[in-house]
């Protein structure tokens, strides 16, 4: 079966499609973000290059390609060169396990609308997400400059802290789907999206991924005002563009993962009859989730560093542990009592935990905000 050359061709084409989709997605995500942000700030946004400014990303790309590449005199050259690549690679690699749809019948053969359906896909995601911190750390270190270094330090601390909550918030999904394969996770949501069963889990996962991709309000590592863009302060030209690309591709990827884990992935009305609708639903869900990310960036100020840490360790981590426990209890009671009502124990109890978290944050902020000792 492996020796079947058309199978290799199919894999090759699918890999190319994923890479190009991410590349074009990155380019037009910057446009999408700038237009959406501009609307929210009652500006117009880029509208000069092409109709509605649609050629703006291409103009930006050409500008970045022709910019001069600088590297600091005291940089560690090899690592300095390597780290943009290391930053970009994880986001592309995760793209391989995202299911875009079920199976379609084209050219006389069944074509699966995903590249790889590995049965430890959830762990694969966790593993690659944990590796993605290297690019940023090494960029900060190899630049040999204090701002880059501070940015990398912050980023490492932040990513390690939020990775714990991220990893644990994946467990309710695995419990609900009874599988680690992304495909089976999506298929398990045919009756009900997991966001309904585990809203708190979805929220924790989303917050943790925001921190993982260093998006506002967790963009401490690149805080333009204090750190002059943090870890990539010393980069220019295409190397800078690679960092930029990595950030936006990670946004796309984590939105896709969130859609797969909690929002039914490629499922939607009519998808069972026409599997080709799968990618369309997936695309729509990713666009909506990306819009929420942009919305958050336009709305919320950057979180302070000590609060970032206490939020991660004192709120997110216990809350994610609680979601695991409550999900397991709900599923166990459902199995024992054979009563579907027990499944609703999970969302109700996790909303209670959510309320406790909100009260906790409120109390902590009220006590500390204007206190002077």
């Amino acid at each position, binding site marked *: 079966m492996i020796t079947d050359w058309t199978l290799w061709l199919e894999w090759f084409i699918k890999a190319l499609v994923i890479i190009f989709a991410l590349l074009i997605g990155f380019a037009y995500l910057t446009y999408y973000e700038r237009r959406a942000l501009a609307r929210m700030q009652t500006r117009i946004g880029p509208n000069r290059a092409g109709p509605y400014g649609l050629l703006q990303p291409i103009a930006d790309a050409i500008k970045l390609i022709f910019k001069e590449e600088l590297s600091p005199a005291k940089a560690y050259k090899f690592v300095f060169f390597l780290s943009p690549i290391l930053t970009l690679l994880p986001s592309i690699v995760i793209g391989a396990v995202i299911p875009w749809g079920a199976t379609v019948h084209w050219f006389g053969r069944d074509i699966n609308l995903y590249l790889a359906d590995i049965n*430890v896909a959830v762990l694969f995601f966790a593993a690659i997400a944990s590796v993605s911190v290297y690019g940023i750390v*090494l960029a900060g270190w190899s630049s040999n400059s204090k701002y880059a270094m501070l940015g990398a330090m912050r980023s490492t601390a932040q990513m*390690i802290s939020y990775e714990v909550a991220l990893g644990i918030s994946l467990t309710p999904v695995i419990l609900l789907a009874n599988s680690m394969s992304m495909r089976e996770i999506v298929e398990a949501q045919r009756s009900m999206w997991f966001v309904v069963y585990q809203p708190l889990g979805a929220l924790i996962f989303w917050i943790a991924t925001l921190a993982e991709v260093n998006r506002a309000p967790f963009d401490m590592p690149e805080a333009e005002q204090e750190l002059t863009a943090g870890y990539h302060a010393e980069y220019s030209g295409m190397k800078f563009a690679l960092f930029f690309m990595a950030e936006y591709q990670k946004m796309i990827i984590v939105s896709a993962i969130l859609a797969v884990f909690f929002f039914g992935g490629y499922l939607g009305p009519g998808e069972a009859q026409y599997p080709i609708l799968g990618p369309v639903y997936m695309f729509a869900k990713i666009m909506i989730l990306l819009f929420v990310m942009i919305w958050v960036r336009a709305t919320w100020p950057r979180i302070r560093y000590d609060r970032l840490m206490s939020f991660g360790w004192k709120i997110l981590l216990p809350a994610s542990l609680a979601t695991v426990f409550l999900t397991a209890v709900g599923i166990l009671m459902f199995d024992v009592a054979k009563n579907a009502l027990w499944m609703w124990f999970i969302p109700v109890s996790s909303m209670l935990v959510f309320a406790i978290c909100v009260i906790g944050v409120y109390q902590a902020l009220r006590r500390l905000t204007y206190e002077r000792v």
Partner: protein
Amino acid sequence: MTLDLALFLVLACIAVASALGMLLSRNTVYAALYLVLNFITVAIFYLLLGAPFIAMAQITVYTGAIMVLFLFVIMLLGAENLPAPNALPWQKPLAIALAAALFAEAAYLLIVKARSLGNVLPPAEAINATENLRQLGVALFQNYLLPFEIVSILLLVAMIGAITLTKKEKGARSG
């Protein structure tokens, strides 16, 4: 099988080279990066052996968590460059002798006793990863629950110990 063998040979070369690089590099950041490469190679070995769960756990825990902390500490302390080796005079001959002994033992076991080791590769039916995962869960949480819990408590104690040791005592703060 030949494809597996070719993969194994290439990976083995990378693993040995990265381990040597880790030992010989005078820059601790490079040494840490060599170790990262080594860990990833080991993870791919696990994949070759049909144990994807352990491979992913290896990457998540060692590559993703522990080595990032190593790098973090190296950078925080600014300890990139090791001082010139200040070896004790008897250290080198002893190390060489011990390494030679270890190598000889390993060679003896692998070459002379290879027959009695039996087939160490897993049987083909054990490679089904989903079942693998289930078996692992059952083994950890049913058959070996008590040892598992004891290990987790041990780790917890170690963690609390580390926090207690590094915490400043109240009132003992100076300047």
